[in-house]
């Protein structure tokens, strides 16, 4: 029957169409914000004589009216050109992002895998015996994970596992061993959150009557868990994974800074310090694309996991 396919396709089209105004809004908001910022990008070099400064500003079209700059910016954006970098004169923004984005993606993907694994395992173990020491420990870890800023977690990991134990390198990005500490730093808080959510969701399902009926019928615990609890309890967890993936990719800048990883986030921080506006705008737009894509992916997964959504064609959230 077509009914099972059409809503999913409609959902994709709806989401893709909706993503266009969102991306435009993000691009425009960033443009406006950065033009509201007090002081021009070349104000810091106070030594620049006025005529040279004028030349520099002419080169980057900063002498044109704002509307013209905006039109130029949007036009370039449509062609995938993110403009020149003010600070790195030899490279444009697209080239910098092409170099650094894969690094952030690798880090984000590793952290995402860790988050899903640790979060689901912790949540399932906690829900297995609510109130047990496993449950209590996971709750404590979860609250700690939410409370510790990731840079504090990173510092502790560097001090203990790199400086004291020498198990992993404390910084840089030169091979698989270099991924472990930053990915762990990035994943800990979201993993704790996923664990709590998984636990809550599983216990909610466990309290449903049809589960009690299943138990009363004498179904073995394995069947109860696999075809009752996990099947109904995991889809709600999936909804947060999309924003979480986006948060891991976009939130990596602290970790990249901490471990001196040449990713997009570290360049973003430098760009903010340097007032390198095109680079800031470029990274922001790329982040927005990542977020839109991650949410789309999750909507699709969710529709696939939860038949109720599949037939009604409703949204995942």
């Amino acid at each position: 029957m077509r009914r099972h396919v059409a809503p999913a396709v409609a959902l994709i089209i709806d989401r893709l169409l909706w993503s266009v105004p969102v991306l435009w809004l993000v691009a425009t908001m960033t443009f406006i914000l950065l033009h509201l910022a007090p002081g021009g990008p070349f104000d810091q070099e106070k030594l620049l004589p006025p005529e040279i400064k004028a030349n520099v500003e002419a080169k980057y079209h900063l002498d044109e009216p704002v509307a013209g700059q905006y039109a130029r910016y949007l036009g370039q954006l449509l062609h995938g050109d993110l403009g020149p970098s003010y600070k790195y004169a030899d490279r444009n923004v697209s080239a910098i992002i092409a170099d650094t984005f894969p690094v952030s993606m690798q880090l984000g993907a590793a952290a995402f895998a860790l988050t899903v694994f640790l979060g689901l395992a912790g949540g399932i173990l906690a829900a297995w015996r609510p109130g047990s020491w496993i449950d209590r420990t996971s709750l404590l870890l979860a609250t700690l994970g939410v409370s510790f800023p990731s840079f504090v977690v990173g510092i502790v990991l560097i001090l203990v596992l790199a400086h004291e134990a020498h198990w992993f390198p404390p910084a840089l990005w030169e091979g698989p061993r270099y991924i472990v500490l930053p990915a762990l730093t990035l994943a800990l808080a979201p993993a704790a959150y996923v664990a709590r959510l998984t636990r809550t969701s599983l216990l909610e399902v466990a309290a449903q009557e049809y589960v009690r009926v299943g138990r009363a019928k004498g179904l073995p615990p394995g069947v109860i868990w696999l075809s009752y609890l996990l099947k109904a309890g995991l889809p709600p967890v999936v909804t947060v994974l999309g924003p979480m993936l986006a948060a891991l990719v976009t939130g990596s800048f602290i970790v990249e800074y901490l471990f001196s990883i040449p990713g997009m986030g570290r360049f973003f921080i430098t760009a903010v310090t340097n007032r390198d506006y095109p680079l800031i705008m470029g990274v922001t737009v790329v982040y927005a694309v990542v977020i839109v894509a991650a949410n789309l992916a999750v909507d699709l997964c969710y529709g696939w996991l939860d038949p109720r959504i599949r037939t009604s064609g409703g949204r995942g959230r």
Partner: protein
Amino acid sequence: MRAGTAFRGHHLALISGTILGAIALAALFAPWLAPYPFDAQDPSRLLQSPSLDHWLGTDRLGRDLLSRLIYGARISMTLGVVTALIATAFGIAYGMAAGYLGGRTDNLLMRLLEVVYALPDLLLIILLTIVLGRGLTGMIAALSLVSWVTVARLVRGEVLRLQSAEYLDAARALGASHLRIIIRHLLPMMVGPLLVTLSFRIPAAILAESTLSFVGIGLAPPTPSWGGMASDGWAALRFYPHVIIVPSLAIAVTIFAFNVLGDYLNDRLNPRAVVSVKR
């Protein structure tokens, strides 16, 4: 089944409350409590370990860490509480407007909110601080402009839930004005959940500020921000770890205490508690 079930024994909440009370007092009486001014440099005592003169040691400019920690409490507490209050006030107004007016206004307001909600908080805060400046006021403004979203969603949801309640029909039938309905009949019903979100907004703001200050794009030095202090200690991590451990511990303990207290309030005040996606 809620986030804070294991804390129902009050003990942890009590301890957290005491810790936060102590930090608040330290923030309030900083000039009397701190043994040195927070920006006094002593070139003859750089990077000292804890001693009788400097209980927590000194940083790389010879500034007393205890004094900076105490003044830092002032910054963190002010920033957290003021941000949470502004965000709550604005969130109430926005959520009320969306939920109470409904229809097209609601649709428009919620779509707009979705865009803000979809973007990562830290990214937005960074972009806003570029415009608003890196002083305490600018930082509070940037944080507030981001953290009202959760409150607005909560308030709108509550309004929609209460809309059809019989006592509201009664009030309307008796001719109560819109303002009266909002203030007398809607707001008091959400005090519990609002207090809970308020208590989670405070640590969220402190966390965001310290993270940004740590990577050097938060509060501008020499403001004694805990994140900034940790950033100072970062360079000396290998040989003088106390410089970074002291402020990091302060941040972690404060945020942990707020979260425990929030969980406790959640258990107490929120009858239909659910784990919120974005705290």
